[in-house]
Structure formats: structure tokens, C-alpha cells
């Protein structure tokens, strides 16, 4: 079974993101880049499906600038067999729909039976690509997946997704798109042998022309990014407990209007 995992390279979760000189972009100086954590669940799940079935191929794919190769290399180190890098100036500033179109085109070429991705990237939290991709492919899609099981024949997948207070269980005919939620699995650490082996695996550059696509202007344009205003300092209420509690209740009611 061939599985394609779409991943995004995002700033490390510990990064304090700053607005850049161009106020529509973040300042990327000094940022450590990682594979978006939800996408790591997707990679892990794809590897588990392959290991459980005893055969198959896991292909990692990502769209972005040259640095994205490092993220793809991490996926290869975890155990993906090869990687595709959608690396073309035509995709600079691609919005979710342009990204989904590029992914759909590469998926049509690769013809995997299953596409896995994270439920959203942790940088812009848009969470739209998965659904747009499935729509463009005309494939069924389930998001926020907590469990999955591909049947022995590889024709359907049973997926359980997180809903308020429980799980909702679906059967989807394959091919399908699944988007991983936290809790689906615990991603493995790349082993040292895996890291050494990753260098020998292929990361193929894919250009828009290879997919029969031209430059597509993004329909969604970012007007600007704004940092949140700094939080006002907290207030410590002094005095003995009964007086302080009274004052706290008054402040919550009258000043903060929280209760």
C-alpha cells in the first residue's frame, strides 16, 4: 500500500514569533524549523500502517522553500521511503487553495491509496488544506482522527474522530484523506541509523511545470500581521483574607465584569 504524507515545516513551538520588516510576514531570523507536530502524528501513523502490513511505501511531501528539505529529511530519518519537495517560485506565498491544488496534482501522479496529514499546521492554524485537497481529488476525508484501521484488503479504512465527549467512527472507502489529531499515536524518535540512512534516500524537487500547473495567484492575501498588545501587569490584592476576598469579588464583578 502506498501512503502519502503531506507535511508542513513550521517554526519550533518555543519560538517567539515577531512580525517582520514586511508586516505581512514573520521575521524568520534565528528561527528553528520543525515538522508541524500534527504532521508528525501523520508520519508516525503512515509508518505504522506500513509496518503492520509488512509492505508498502511511505512518501513524504511538502511545499515550501529550500529549507523545507530539512523537514523532509527528518521524515526520512523517521522511516519514510522517499520525499517530494514542491519547490518552485510559482508557489511563493501560496494560500491554502493553491497549496491544495499543488498537492492534488502530485497525488494524481503518485496515486497513493491513502493520504495522511495533520489536522492543522501549528503556525497559521488555518486547517483548510486537508478538506480542500480531498474536495479537489473527490476523495472522502475525515479530520481529527484519533484511531484508524485499514482493512486487510486495503479497500476501506475505519477511522475514529474526536467529537465533543466521545468518538465518532467512520468507514471510508480508499483512497481517502485522513487528518491526524493529537493522541493518534506517540511519534517515534528518529534513530541514529535512521538519520544516517536518510541521507541516502531521495528527495525529489517537483516544479509547477512538472505537474502541469502554472503560477497561481493566491486568492487569499495577507493584509498584515499584528502582535498582541502586551498584557497589563497583574494586580495583587493586599490585606487580611476576609477583606482581600471581598475586594477580589468586587474587582471581578465591577472592574473585570467576569462574574
Amino acid at each position, binding site marked *: 500500500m502506498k501512503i502519502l504524507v503531506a507535511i508542513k515545516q513550521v517554526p519550533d513551538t*518555543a519560538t517567539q514569533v515577531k512580525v517582520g520588516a514586511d508586516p505581512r510576514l514573520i521575521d524568520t531570523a534565528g528561527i528553528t524549523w520543525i515538522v508541524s507536530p500534527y504532521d508528525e502524528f501523520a508520519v508516525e501513523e503512515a509508518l505504522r500502517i506500513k509496518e503492520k502490513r509488512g509492505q508498502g511505501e511511505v512518501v513524504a511531501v511538502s511545499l515550501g522553500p529550500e529549507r523545507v528539505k530539512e523537514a523532509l529529511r527528518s521524515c526520512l530519518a523517521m522511516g519514510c521511503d522517499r520525499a517530494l519537495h514542491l519547490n518552485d517560485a510559482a508557489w511563493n506565498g501560496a494560500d491554502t487553495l493553491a497549496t491544495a491544488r499543488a498537492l492534488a496534482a502530485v497525488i494524481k501522479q503518485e496515486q497513493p491509496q491513502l493520504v495522511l496529514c495533520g489536522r492543522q499546521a501549528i503556525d497559521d492554524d488555518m486547517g483548510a488544506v486537508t478538506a480542500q485537497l480531498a474536495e479537489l481529488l473527490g476523495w472522502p476525508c475525515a479530520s481529527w482522527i484519533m484511531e484508524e484501521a485499514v482493512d486487510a484488503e486495503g479497500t476501506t479504512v475505519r477511522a475514529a474522530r474526536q467529537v465533543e465527549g466521545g468518538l465518532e467512527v467512520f468507514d471510508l472507502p480508499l483512497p481517502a484523506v485522513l487528518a491526524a489529531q493529537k493522541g493518534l499515536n506517540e511519534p517515534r524518535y528518529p534513530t*541514529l541509523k535512521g538519520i*544516517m540512512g536518510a*541521507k541516502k534516500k531521495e528527495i525529489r524537487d517537483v516544479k509547477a511545470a512538472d505537474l502541469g500547473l502554472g503560477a497561481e495567484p493566491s486568492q487569499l492575501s495577507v493584509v498584515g500581521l499584528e502582535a498582541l498588545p502586551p498584557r497589563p501587569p497583574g494586580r495583587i490584592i493586599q490585606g487580611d483574607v476576609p477583606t482581600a476576598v471581598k475586594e477580589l469579588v468586587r474587582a471581578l464583578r465591577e472592574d473585570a465584569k467576569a462574574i
Partner: protein
Amino acid sequence: MEKFRGVDYYGIEALLSEEERMIRDAIRDWVETEFLPLVTEHHRAGTFPVQLLPKLGELGVFGATLKGYGCAGLNNVAYGLIMQELERGDSGLRSAASVQSGLVMHPIHAYGSDAQKERWLPALATGEKVGCFGLTEPDHGSDPGSMKTRARRQGDGYVLNGTKLWITNGSIADLAVVWAKGDDGEIHGYLVERGTPGFSTLDIHGKFSMRASITSELSFQDCRIPLENELPHVKGLRGPLGCLNQARYGIAWGAIGAATACYDWALQYAQQRVQFAKPIASFQLVQQKLVWMLTEITKAQLLCLQLGRLKDLGAARPQQVSMAKMNNVQMALETARLARDILGAAGIVDEHPIIRHMLNLETVNTYEGTHDIHTLIIGRDITGLDAFGV
């Protein structure tokens, strides 16, 4: 405190290959997620998280530079970076990996028979089996050549008698690599399995340093082992010293890990801690300490990187390894002490990692060749005169 940010004042990152960086980052993540949440509890209890050994094996940490036998075949810089990251966690964690790799797998690989390699290396690589290294004795530390432990030939085996002290992982080891004098009066290496009659271990308690590490005494009383348990391809002090050279190399890198942990923590603390209405980082005396720490860390990083590159070329001399071990551990110990000072009273509690590293480094300063002994090794090398007091 914020997550550890790495320390690289001189753009040394650019001198590492992509694989070396990926390996460093993988171990850094592992230590952050799997080890650091446990360390305070183990440090308090004086225990080592033994359940992590198979996990380290799964990652490929043990014998990482060896080729074959399920090992990763890394270069020496990548191995050094692993040691650095493990010791940013705790010197005890790095010690466990150092011992297994440099002091147990290395001698079996370098001096062992094919049968010994086949039997032990794969299981030691996965962490399924744990090894320890017995050289130091109660009365013979810096002068191992005077050891008292004897291995006498009797029929179809050797009979070992003697005591080894300060042995990391002694009581949990499945296999001890023991150095003893044979009938020829020369030092030989012997593989002694746990459970061999006459072989017993006792843990050392009351330690104020390396608390999250197991330190034991090994005792051999008419302990009989088969002839094939002797390491066939080495004789004399060169055997154990070759192992120590491996382990000392790892320590030189490890010390950077402990030092950067202390420096990064102290820097963040000094920027946040307000006294006299200013962050204490704004005071000249505090800045002087931080600058000293960073400068020494940077020098140590460059020393290790070049040593690793030399080692990969097969051109590193033991005296150069001595210099890196001597310099880097002293720099780390001093860095930990200064960091402790910057944290003031907070520096003595285990809510912060400083005091733990500081106490650990007192051991690291002494073991695998004391600071003074390494000084004499380099002194002899440059003057041609032996100052070992003989």
C-alpha cells in the same frame, strides 16, 4: 525558564554536517522529553532510571561509532554531540552511555575474539544487556598499574581474586569487563558474567555527586571463568588506557553539555531576577561571570570539534584527548559554580539543575584520569620528563 536554546557564539553550527546536527537535535529532544522530567526524582532518591537503557539502545546511542553488530557507524563528532546532549541532561546519564560504549563495547570490539563480539555486541547495542568496566581498586586509582586483582590459570579456566571500586552500573551489569594481572604479571581483560560464582557487587551509598547513577564495588573471590572469557588481543596497561581514551573523549564533549545547561539557565535567571530595581544581569559583576562562562564554553566547543575531526582522521593523540578532558571538565565545574553563585540561594535547590550539575562535575573532574593526572600526561608529553613521582 524557557526551553534550552543552545549555545553557539561562534557560528560553530556551520562547521557541523546536516547529519551531525540532526543527530544532536534528536538526542536533545529525547533528553528534554524522556529524561529531564525524571531526573530530579532520581537524583533525590539516588537511583538511575534503568528503564531508559533499552530506549537509548533503540535510538542507537550505544557503540554508536562501531560498524556492524547493529551499530550506527557514526563519526566521532556525531558521537561527541550525543555525549554533550546526554550530559546536558545529567552526568549520570552520559556516564551510563560512556561506559556501555567506550568502556565495554569498545574493548570487546577492539580486543575481543569474534565469538565474544558476536555474543555481546548486538545485545549491548540494543541495551538488552548492560556492561560495566572494572579497573580502579580501593587502593589503586590514578596508578592502575599497581593493581592487586589477579587472574590465575587453573585447569581450563581463570580464577579471579580482587576488588574493583567506583564502578558505574556495577550492580545492574550483565557483564563486567575486568582488568587483572595474569600469571605473566601483565594486565589482561576478562569478561565476567553476572551470576558467576564468586562474583558479587555492592552499591556505594552516601554519594553527594552522581546521585542519579549507580556506583558499585565488584568483588571477586575465587571467581572461576572459562578460558575463552579472556580478551585475546591486548596485554598490558595499554588495554584499559585505550578504553579510557575513548571514554575521556566523550567526557570532554559531555562537560560542554553540563556547562551549557548551567550557563543558559543562569543567563535566563539573571535577566529575570530583579534586585535594586534592575535585572541582576545588568550588574557588571554578573555580566563578568556570564561572559567568562560563554567564552570558556566557546573555547571548549572548538577544542572538541577539532579533536573529533582529528579522531576521524585517526590522528588524535591520547595527550590531546587528555587536554580536552582536563580543560573542559574544569571549565564546566567552574561554570556550574559561577551559575550557582548567580542564582544565589535558589542555586542550592534542585528546582534548578545547577547544583546537581555542579556536584556531578566534582566526580567528572576526578574520574577517567583526574585533572592533575591529565596535567602530568601533557607535562610529560611536552617536556619529555616524567613527573608521576616514580
